[in-house]
């Protein structure tokens, strides 16, 4: 299925993502930041759909917008936001940080302007109906053979186990 009105949706989603990204780093109240971050994550999920990646878009919505952001909101409710919302938002070195970030942006812009010819104009169209199936074949292997990322997948599960243990131990009062 060919996407319709691609430029319109691209500019809408990209603008939404960047505007709410600005809101994330400028709001005084952490809950407002979290809500803006959810909007950013959903727009990026829309961009994934436009890039023929429906499975990654679903993971983005379920894991990021569903899991990680709920975790963030719970922690915001656990810690005291009354005090921090009255304090200064930015630290004293913010001009230096802003200058460093602008330098990074200038670096990106010059790299993209110089290397424009390196990126081919063609965009492959990936089969989207079998996308999940193909990703599963790469992660879990196909027809009894290990896929190219099966080992990395197992390591990722160990990483998650370590993260769970770390989070539980870290938040316990007495070990």
């Amino acid at each position, binding site marked *: 299925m060919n996407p319709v009105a691609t430029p319109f949706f691209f500019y809408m989603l990209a603008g939404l993502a960047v505007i709410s990204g600005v809101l994330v780093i400028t709001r005084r109240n952490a809950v407002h930041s979290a809500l803006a971050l959810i909007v950013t994550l959903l727009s990026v999920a829309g961009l994934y759909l436009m890039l023929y990646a429906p499975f990654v878009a679903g993971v983005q919505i379920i894991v990021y917008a569903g899991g990680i952001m709920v975790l963030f909101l719970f922690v915001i409710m656990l810690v005291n936001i009354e005090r921090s919302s009255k304090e200064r938002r930015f630290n004293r070195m913010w001009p*230096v940080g802003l200058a460093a970030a602008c330098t990074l942006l200038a670096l990106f812009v010059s790299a993209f302007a110089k290397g424009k010819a390196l990126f081919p104009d063609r965009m*492959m169209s990936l089969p989207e109906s079998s996308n999940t199936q193909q990703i599963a074949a790469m992660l879990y292997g196909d027809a009894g053979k290990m896929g190219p990322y099966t080992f990395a997948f197992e390591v990722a599960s160990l990483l998650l186990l370590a993260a769970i243990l770390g989070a539980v131990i870290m*938040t316990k009062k007495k070990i």
Partner: protein
Amino acid sequence: MVPITTLHYLVVAAALFVLGVIGVLTRRNVVIVLMSIELILNAVNLNLVAFSRMWGNLHGQVFAIFVTVDAAAEAAVGLGILIAFFRNKETINVDEIDLLKW
């Protein structure tokens, strides 16, 4: 109208990345610093998926899933550290996180 190419997606990802860097370097609230790190990881994911489409294979999308796993692990541990810190010092200010042990 100009057709949307890989470069368009890379520019959006660069903008999100720079926003995340600004948030990490300038904000004082640790929760918002962690959210800025999520912004940075999302920019990386967008790059990976855009390159995946440019080359017409799925390696970039698999890597994007691994980056998401990393982000979940990082958020869980980071917020755990934040709660432990808040219990000891009653603040979530980056400027006051300056002791490793006391």
